[in-house]
């Protein structure tokens, strides 16, 4: 078909064709590129890699399963199969006839069933019609009624025939089955044998990605929407929304897309596997795992062992989440479907790529290892083979507002929901971190407006009467560098810091000038404090014996809150070195270190302070140990011997007049003009200038935040508020010139600043002045935060809390500990933490390791208060807390329970806390009960049979200072039982006698009624013993009490609960009912009843006391 006539063209068609062909090919290639770009995504590689690992593991398990599967059994099963086949063939005709017969019957049965259904349907309709007729009083109601009856009868007949045919059918079926039964049984047995292998093979199939396998085909580019195996895994959390600038957006966590095995056990890291297997093993040995779960736990431990012995460790992102029972597990406290991941870890919830998800490196090494790859491959597969480098594509993305918490800071995420609690259950790191902040007093300068850190007392001592306490010379040297005087002090060093005098940071001439200015400021502060101080006369101590004082200090309980040594033996290196705060339990840092107190304070002050601290200033944290004058004198004598002469002979440079003048003028300029300021300064003497400068310097450095200083009450804390510091944007943190820099701390360690918020906070805590390096600033503009000389561990802990304080709001129902009862407990815990009770006592399972480290024999330690709530009666506890002398329960303990001068409100809070924590009724007093005489008699016999008097005294004693038993055999020390009635709750006593060890682990009270491992009930030692000859006489006395009922007696002797109740009734009878013995001429004060300061929560009602044993005992055994 030649064209009619050629036509002119602008471009040669041949060239256009060529261009057309080329461009179309390029377009095709580019379309392919687009498909590839969209298809190839980083997370797909992670899922493929995990499938490969699963395949490897499953095939390994198949190998193990096949090995176990005994071939022999399988073989003979096959043989039996063949035999059945042959036998069936022989009886083929009978089998066939049975089958035919069944089919026939099947037909009848179906017909009968069908008829039945039709008639039933008609009957239903008829019932409706009759009811309607009756209701509407229609004339033909009776006929309908009759019709209804007829049909019901007809239906009954049909029902009979239906049942008949069903019976016949079942018989025929049975007849057929018995031929097939043998084959079916063999089949089942074989299937059961190979069940585990079949299951594994089925699993293998789902994870198999060999080319051209179904999974592989279904995950090809344009097909991967049908039923993809490799897909994005997400959890939609609507009620845990993200606060995105005044909007709450539903949170959609997609972390599981790469972290495939996060909630499936079996992929733990080696360390986690070791920890978990040890923990499970412990539980197994302690019978804490219910019977049916034991086998499964053993398998789990075996699996963990296999993980530990595997050649290489499982790497993130394929690891299981540690502590699956607490996090992420479906049965855990924070199941994945309800909490997701980013609630605690933060990070970009919707991201499906490593870099965009906001992973934050903890150290520069980690940052390098994750280093961002070339841009092109950022979205493509990371090189699978470079495991060591593992370049996952970390990019410092400043557009992520909530980057993830780095390693060692994970528990920062707890604060968001647990800020209403004193401690996070099983969150030891964060609990200790918050306690560190409370003890070191960060909240004083930095306002933290959440329940945990509000209305706490000022950490530093009152400086109102400093002149009475110490000398200006000491004060000067102390303020300039407190750590020279005490290594473990909490007082930070404000002066001569890095940005003032560090040689390689501050040029020489400025350094000299700075020193002068710093000296001037210290002199000014000291002169201001001493100028404004009160001068109350304190009575001098009498003659005291230092040795007795030392013994007293060691025994009476001072070492719970104080530290008396400065040298400590380093467990690693073995030599003696300067002590650090971390060498001692946290509670011992509550009071200050006693070394050098002699040089610091004058004896008169020490004497009066030790006798009654509150006299010096009202809210002194130190309680009074009720020392007699002589004891106080002895203690003072000992304390005076603790001198640090070296500290006092460091020279003090006199204040440089010009420096004082310049500094004072610097402040005057704010209000007066230059000329007026000069005139004012000339009019003031050197001392006045110092006092004025001192006041302004105190204002500048914020001493009033931690110390009560007259004239500075109610001022705003000096530091920046930290309430939402964790949400502060990264660019608002002033890194100065320290970004990605290395710097050397004064304790020789080198730290590295990386561009993340946790790193900034950590380095700021380690040395607050580093961000001034290489910056030219006027003297007063330099950074002011003092240096606490925090160790890396302390700094990390505090930084973790700071980073955890975020502005994210969590719905009320998701906050932890919001119910009324928990609020009561938490208020109490706050008091316990404020008064440092854990120095001497174990509360909620924690504490007492301070005093334990100074007292050798554990039997002389103060009591473990874990069960206190269930044990103590509220009035007794209330009075005991107000005035501990009211009853001395453990006279042999040298450590004295101090008087804390609790207000009524505080005492009530504590009593409520102990009651609620112990799950007992809040203000319960059961003193009034009087047990029936018969119970008492029986109890007395049992009491003597159990020989309780070996340890417990039963003779009434004066509760206020009972005689001290001989402490030779320290394991037999036990409280006097006559005090029980006043002190202990009625039903707790019998409970305690039955299972002391479960209440207080390692108590001296023997376990007289051990648990029966099988049933879990209690075994009674008297069950057998009663018939033995030595017990004959007791048996004789007991018989009449049981009206001669031998069998009943035998039974009661075996019944541990009954026995303990009788014991309790007997103890109750011998108890005293009056606490404070009336001193001559003094009326006995009524026992003060604690007022329920808070609305009593809906605690369970008090259990009704068991029915009284009838005098005649006719009601058989006491009803249980």
């Amino acid at each position: 078909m030649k064209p009619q006539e050629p036509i002119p063209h602008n471009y040669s068609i041949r060239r256009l064709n060529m261009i057309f062909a080329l461009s179309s090919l390029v377009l095709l290639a580019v379309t392919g590129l687009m498909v590839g770009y969209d298809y190839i995504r980083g997370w797909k590689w992670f899922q493929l890699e995990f499938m490969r690992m699963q395949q490897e593991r499953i095939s390994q398990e198949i190998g193990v399963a096949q090995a176990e599967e005994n071939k022999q059994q399988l073989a003979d099963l096959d043989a039996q199969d063949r035999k059945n086949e042959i036998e069936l063939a022989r009886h083929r005709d009978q089998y066939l006839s049975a089958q035919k017969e069944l089919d026939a019957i099947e037909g009848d049965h179906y017909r009968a069933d069908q008829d039945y259904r039709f008639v039933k349907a008609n009957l239903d309709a008829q019932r409706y019609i009759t009811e309607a007729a009756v209701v509407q009083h229609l004339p033909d109601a009776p006929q309908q009624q009759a019709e209804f009856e007829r049909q019901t009868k007809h239906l009954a007949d049909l029902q009979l025939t239906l049942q008949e045919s069903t019976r016949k059918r079942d018989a025929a079926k049975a007849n057929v089955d018995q031929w097939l039964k043998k084959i079916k049984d063999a089949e089942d047995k074989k299937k059961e044998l190979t069940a585990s292998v079949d299951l594994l093979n089925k699993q293998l199939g789902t994870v198999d990605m060999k080319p051209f396998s179904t999974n592989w085909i279904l995950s090809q580019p344009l097909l991967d929407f049908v039923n993809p195996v490799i897909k994005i895994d997400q959890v939609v959390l609507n009620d845990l929304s993200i606060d995105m600038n005044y909007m709450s957006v539903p949170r959609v966590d997609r972390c599981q897309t790469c972290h495939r095995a996060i909630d499936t056990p079996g992929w733990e890291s080696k360390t986690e596997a070791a920890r978990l297997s040890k923990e499970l093993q412990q539980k197994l040995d302690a019978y804490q795992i219910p019977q049916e779960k034991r086998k499964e736990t053993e398998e789990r431990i075996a699996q963990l062992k296999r993980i530990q012995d595997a050649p290489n460790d499982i790497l993130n992102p394929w690891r299981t989440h540690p502590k699956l029972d607490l996090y992420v597990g479906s049965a855990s406290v924070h199941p994945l479907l309800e909490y997701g991941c980013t609630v605690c870890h933060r990070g970009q919830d919707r991201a499906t790529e490593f870099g965009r998800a906001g992973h934050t490196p903890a150290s520069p090494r980690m940052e390098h290892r994750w280093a961002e790859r070339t841009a092109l491959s950022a979205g493509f597969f990371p090189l699978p083979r470079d495991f060591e480098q593992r370049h996952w594509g970390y990019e410092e993305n400043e557009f992520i507002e909530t980057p993830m918490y780095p390693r060692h800071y994970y528990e920062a995420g707890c604060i968001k929901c647990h800020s209403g609690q004193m401690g996070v259950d099983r969150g030891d790191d964060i609990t200790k971190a918050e306690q560190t902040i409370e003890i070191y007093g960060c909240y004083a300068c930095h306002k933290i407006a959440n329940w945990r850190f509000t209305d706490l007392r000022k950490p530093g001592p009152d400086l109102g009467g400093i002149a009475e306490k110490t000398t200006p010379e000491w004060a000067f040297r102390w303020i300039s560098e407190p750590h020279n005087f005490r290594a473990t002090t909490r007082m930070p060093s404000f002066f001569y810091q890095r940005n003032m005098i560090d040689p390689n940071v501050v040029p020489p001439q400025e350094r000299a000038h700075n020193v002068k200015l710093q000296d001037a400021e210290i002199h000014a502060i000291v002169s201001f404090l001493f100028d404004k101080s009160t001068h109350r006369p304190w009575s001098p101590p009498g003659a005291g014996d230092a040795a007795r004082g030392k013994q007293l200090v060691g025994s009476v309980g001072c070492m719970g809150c104080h530290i008396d040594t400065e040298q400590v033996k380093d467990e690693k290196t073995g030599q003696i070195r300067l002590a650090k705060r971390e060498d001692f339990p946290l509670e011992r840092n509550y009071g200050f270190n006693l070394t050098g107190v002699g040089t610091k304070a004058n004896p008169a002050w020490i004497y009066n302070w030790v006798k009654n601290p509150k006299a010096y200033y009202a809210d002194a944290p130190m309680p009074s140990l009720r020392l007699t004058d002589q004891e106080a004198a002895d203690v003072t004598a000992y304390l005076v011997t603790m001198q640090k002469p070296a500290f006092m002979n460091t020279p003090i440079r006199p204040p440089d007049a010009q420096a004082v003048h310049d500094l004072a003028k610097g402040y005057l300029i704010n209000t007066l003009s230059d000329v007026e300021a000069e005139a004012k300064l000339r009019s003031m003497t050197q001392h006045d200038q110092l006092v004025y400068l001192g006041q302004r310097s105190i204002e500048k450095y914020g001493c009033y935040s931690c110390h009560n200083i007259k004239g500075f009450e109610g001022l705003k804390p000096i530091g920046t508020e930290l309430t939402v510091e964790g949400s502060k944007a990264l660019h608002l943190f002033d890194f100065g010139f320290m970004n990605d820099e290395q710097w050397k701390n004064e304790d020789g360690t080198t730290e590295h600043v990386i561009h993340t918020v946790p790193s900034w906070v950590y380095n700021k805590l380690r040395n607050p002045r580093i961000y001034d390096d290489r910056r030219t600033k006027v003297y007063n503009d330099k950074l002011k935060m003092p240096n606490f000389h925090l160790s890396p561990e302390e700094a990390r802990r505090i930084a973790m809390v700071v980073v955890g304080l975020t502005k994210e709001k969590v719905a009320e129902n998701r906050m932890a500990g919001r119910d009324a009862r928990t609020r009561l407990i938490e208020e109490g815990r706050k008091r316990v933490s404020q008064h440092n009770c854990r120095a001497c006592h174990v509360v909620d399972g924690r504490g007492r390791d301070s005093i334990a480290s100074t007292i050798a024999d554990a039997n002389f330690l103060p009591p473990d208060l874990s069960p206190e709530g269930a044990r103590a009666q509220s009035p007794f506890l209330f009075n005991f807390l107000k005035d501990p002398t009211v009853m001395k329960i453990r006279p042999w303990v040298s450590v004295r329970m101090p008087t804390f001068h609790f207000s009524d409100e505080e005492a009530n809070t504590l009593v409520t806390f102990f009651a609620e924590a112990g799950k007992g009724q809040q203000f319960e007093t059961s003193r009034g009960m009087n047990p029936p005489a018969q119970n008492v008699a029986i109890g007395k016999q049992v009491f003597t049979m159990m020989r309780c008097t070996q340890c417990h005294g039963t003779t009434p004693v004066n509760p206020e200072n009972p005689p001290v038993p001989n402490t030779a055999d320290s394991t037999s020390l036990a409280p006097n039982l006559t005090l029980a009635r006043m002190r202990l709750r009625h039903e707790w006593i019998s409970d305690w006698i039955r299972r002391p060890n479960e209440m207080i682990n390692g108590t001296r009270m023997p376990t007289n009624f051990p648990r029966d491992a099988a049933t879990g009930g209690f075994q009674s030692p008297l069950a057998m013993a009663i018939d033995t000859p030595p017990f004959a006489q007791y048996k004789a006395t007991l018989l009449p009490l049981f009206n001669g009922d031998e069998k009943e007696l035998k039974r009661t002797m075996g019944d541990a609960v009954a026995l303990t109740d009788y014991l309790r009734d007997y103890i109750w009878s011998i108890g005293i009912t009056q606490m404070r013995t009336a001193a001559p001429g003094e009326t006995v004060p009524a026992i003060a009843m604690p007022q329920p300061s808070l609305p009593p929560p809906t605690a369970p009602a008090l259990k009704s006391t068991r029915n009284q044993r009838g005098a005649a005992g006719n009601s058989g055994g006491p009803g249980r």
Partner: protein
Amino acid sequence: MSEEIKPYQLVPKTPLAGSAAADIREQGEITRRSFPFVLTTAWLALAAALGGLASILGRFLFPNVLFEPVQKFKAGLVADYSVGEVDERWKDKYGIWIVRTEEIVYALITVCTHLGCTPNWLPTQNKFKCPCHGSGYYKSGINFEGPTPRPLERAKIFIDVADGQIVVDKSKQFHQERGEWTDPEAFIKL
């Protein structure tokens, strides 16, 4: 050293003939000889590319991730359900009836197999009745009246070994007509 400027001549309007025609043909007019290779590859490539783009648009319409409500939920303990009774506790939230008989517990999906309406359980008449077209099912889910082609589907149901609760997973359904109701995951053996 630069292009030489020569004045243009006005090209006459006369129709092309002779040499000019040849010259044009030489420019590769569409003749049979040149058509097959270059142009076929061009058109094929273009068709393939456009096909690719079209399938991309198609694939675009199938989202990789769904925000549908959760399919799996915990339905309390077996003891919470009384024997022989159809429990409608989860009907609104998850579209599931839980029925407990003497031997087994099974979960029926509240979607009529006819056209997808939600049937109601009529205790008096002891049957599920679909309001849309009158389909009727027995308590077991077997269809017996109305246009419905097949019985109600059962959802996967099992006991979570960790805390002993019933777990219903609607993402897996079981059809009675395919004999799937015997599958151990279709019911809980008591």
